[in-house]
């Protein structure tokens, strides 16, 4: 239900916008580009000036100035090209998919048409299942990711910063890491039944190790010369950590989090495939058992979209952090 609602509101939103604002919405990213602050002030100044001065307002004087340096950048560095370029392949795939399935080259039982997948989505949404599955899966991923990443950061810091911590913890954690993660499943099910805990813990295990490993290694390899400089200028302990070590590892921490998030989705599906009564993983098994290939496609596409979306959010932070700290 919520799925269709969302779809409806976005489509009506677009249709309902006055012509001018639609234009501005589409024009702004092309002219001013990603620097969101610039795009924001652009819009604001437009409303400040009022409808009669739309064309001659500050917008007109800003546009050429901001355009000039952009034009010198190579095509591959421009925002719109990156977005369009990234969308090309999915669109092409969709077209090929449509062609192949409508031409009957592959039987529908093997490859449903995009329309069938769309209808399956609407059907599930009307039963109220689509929103629920997406919500529960996302919730599990976020909870598991947050737990695992937090513990990973803490233990990674202990092992990376303290020689003693390294000696005491690293061998054990290394051994636990060596256990193939799916080996935990029977144990978790025995201990926690098929409840939420078992899945969240499995996801947390999946998120923990990339964060722990990368953070510990990054802290261990902070430039010794910079550390020595920090110490020579009176920093030690917490202040040394805040001055040198933490800033030095910020980019690594973010890429570790990104990796951990991807792992979290992986482990989510593993957990839901094996033992669950809802969620996208459950949708996959259930549809497999019932031969609903359209729903299998739907689940896969949803996983791709959700995974990419959450990844993009961290990616945004990562890009900022690299600009700021690297």
């Amino acid at each position, binding site marked *: 239900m919520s799925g269709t609602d969302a779809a409806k509101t976005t489509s009506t939103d677009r249709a309902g916008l006055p012509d001018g604002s639609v234009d501005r919405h589409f024009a702004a990213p092309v002219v001013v580009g990603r620097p969101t602050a610039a795009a924001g002030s652009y819009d604001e100044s437009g409303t400040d000036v009022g409808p009669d001065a739309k064309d001659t307002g500050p917008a007109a004087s800003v546009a050429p100035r901001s355009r000039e340096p952009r034009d010198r950048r190579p095509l591959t560095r421009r925002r719109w090209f990156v977005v369009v370029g990234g969308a090309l392949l999915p669109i092409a795939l969709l077209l090929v998919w449509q062609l192949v399935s409508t031409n009957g080259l592959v039987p529908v039982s093997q490859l449903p048409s995009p329309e069938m997948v769309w209808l399956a989505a609407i059907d599930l949404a009307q039963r109220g299942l689509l929103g629920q599955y997406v919500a529960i899966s996302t919730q599990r991923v976020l909870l598991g990711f947050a737990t695992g990443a937090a513990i990973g950061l803490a233990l990674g810091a202990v092992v990376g910063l303290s020689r003693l911590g390294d000696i005491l913890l690293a061998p054990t954690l290394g051994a636990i890491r060596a256990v193939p993660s799916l080996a935990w499943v029977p144990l978790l099910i025995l201990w926690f039944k098929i409840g939420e805990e078992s899945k969240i813990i499995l996801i947390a295990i999946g998120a923990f190790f990339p964060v722990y490993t990368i953070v510990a290694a990054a802290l261990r390899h902070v430039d010794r010369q910079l550390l*020595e400089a920090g110490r*020579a*200028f*009176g920093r030690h302990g917490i*202040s040394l950590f805040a*001055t040198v070590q933490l800033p030095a590892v910020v980019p690594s921490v973010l890429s570790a989090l990104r990796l951990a998030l991807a792992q979290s989705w992986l482990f989510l599906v593993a957990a839901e495939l094996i033992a669950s009564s809802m969620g996208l993983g459950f949708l996959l098994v259930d549809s497999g058992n019932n031969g609903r290939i359209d729903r299998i496609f739907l689940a896969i596409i949803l996983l791709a979209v959700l995974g990419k979306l959450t990844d993009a959010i961290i990616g945004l932070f990562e890009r900022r952090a690299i600009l700021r*700290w690297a």
Partner: protein
Amino acid sequence: MTATSVTGRQPTVRSAARADATAAAPVAFRGVGRAFESAGAVRPVLRDLDLDVAAGEILAILGPSGCGKSTLLRIAGGLDRPTSGEVAIDGTPVAPYDRRTGVGFQEPRLLPWRTIAKNVALGLPRGTPRETARTQVARLLELVGLADFAGHRPREVSGGMAQRASLARALARNPGVLLLDEPFGALDALTRLKMQDLLLDVHAAEPTTVLLVTHDVDEALQLADRVILLGAEGDEPGAVIRQTVVVPGRRPRDRGSAELAELRGRLLDGLGIDRHGVARGVETTTTIPHYPY
């Protein structure tokens, strides 16, 4: 041998003088030796070094590459510990990362994520009030000619500029002992002369003991009260003080004076022998090498 502080310097540096000026401190090396263990073998680098540096003196340390100049400086700053002997500043043994010292490393070692101004601020004593810190940093940047680059990141400035920022950072804490490891190595001739003058100005305004490692004999003679030449003696490994030269006259010195020319020749000879020309049976160079050697 005791430093004679130079008078009549430019007012710009005077304004950099602070009320909290730390008094210059004498440094004493007693039987200092340092050996490094590598690949199972113990290799002595410094051997039984005795040296007294008076408060406010500028001591230049010359020597061939790899002879242990940086090691000596690091020991003086408490960044490294001698394997034998000890170093005392103002009569008390050097503590690890001794706060009485300010270090200008051989490499700029600026924190890449901080602006030049914030990097210089790192050198200020901890707990400096924010407002004071800002004016101090602005002054220091002005002094080393980086006022326009305060907001730049280290990767956005040249090597020489980074080195000047590093010098400013070392000066920031107004240390009793200033340890400078080839602070002007990456500078062009003109900037180098300017920075040498700057160092003398700072020293005149706030007399501090300076241990200055350099490769440049002329620089040593121009800046220092005394020059020591480190190097191996005989077949024994490990550097000792091979020569000590008390530089006559007051700064600023006349670069063309005959007296300095004679000292220059002596020091270059000392360095030249260390180039192993004789030992390897290679013909000794007839021309005096110029910096960089």
